[in-house]
């Protein structure tokens, strides 16, 4: 089973994702995709670490190549956070697969990851509502994340958005 949770920055989406996975799984893996570069990233990582503390998560990192990721143990539940970072890494980092193949590559990774656990919760992000003038690269990135989110919502058993810490279900409400 897979559940996808989206939301803007600081909308409470991580807290919901954790809450949901804790309902279903005892042996849990937190799959972190954010590379710890820079102070802002460090701060976010520390915040997430303190949120997860005492909830019994193991943590592993996967910055690219989700399709080739293997968990170190057997887990009932895997929480992948966040799709926006994974996509950025595949597009912009030197070892990434590149923009042309990123969507297919990541979705294949998700399908494979789901088979390795009972419940997969994916956190993604709403980055589509500011309409600033970005570089061509950034616009491409937004478009691809939009594509991924559409696919994720379609293939997931449940999907919801967190708004100011309130969960708005879009499908599979009974599973949330």
């Amino acid at each position, binding site marked *: 089973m897979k559940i996808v949770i989206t939301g*803007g920055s600081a*909308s409470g989406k991580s807290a919901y994702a954790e809450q949901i996975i804790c309902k279903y799984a005892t042996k849990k893996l937190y799959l972190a995709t954010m590379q710890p570069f820079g102070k802002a990233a460090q701060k976010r990582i520390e915040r997430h670490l303190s949120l997860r503390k005492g909830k019994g998560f193991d943590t592993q990192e996967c910055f690219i190549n989700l399709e080739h990721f293997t968990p170190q143990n057997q887990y009932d539940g895997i929480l992948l956070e966040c799709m926006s970072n994974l996509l950025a890494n595949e597009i912009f980092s030197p070892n990434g697969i590149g923009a042309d193949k990123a969507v297919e590559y990541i979705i294949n990774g998700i399908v494979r990851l789901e088979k390795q656990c009972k419940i997969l919760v994916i956190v993604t992000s709403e*980055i589509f509502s500011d309409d600033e003038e970005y570089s061509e690269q950034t616009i491409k990135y937004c478009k691809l994340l939009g594509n991924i989110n559409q696919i994720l919502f379609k293939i997931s058993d449940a999907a919801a958005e967190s708004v100011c810490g309130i969960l708005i279900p879009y499908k599979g409400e009974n599973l949330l």
Partner: protein
Amino acid sequence: MTVLIVGGAYQGKKDFAKQLFELNDNDFADINNFKDIYNKKAINNLHKYIKIHNIYDASEFANLLKNKVIICNEIGCGVVPVEKELDDWREITGRVCCEIARFADIVIRVTAGIPQVIKGRI
């Protein structure tokens, strides 16, 4: 009663608030005036107030806004900015809204003039 109204820019949030809660322009705080929010029933553009007055403690600030009608843009729904100040501003604004939503009686998200009540009842 505490009411939080969120949504993108130019979605009709303020008009909706005025109509539903019978507010007029004088009921809204002047966001450039730091203390005006204590005296007024309502505040529009909370995200701008947070930026202008450099608010950094989300829960402390949220607690000042009890029993008011608060309107805020959902500024966290765009690309994460590279500039640290803007990133911090989005972060604190989001956390303030989460805090208010927690104790608010009513939370409404307005999209293209259509209100969606996501907490409580109107």
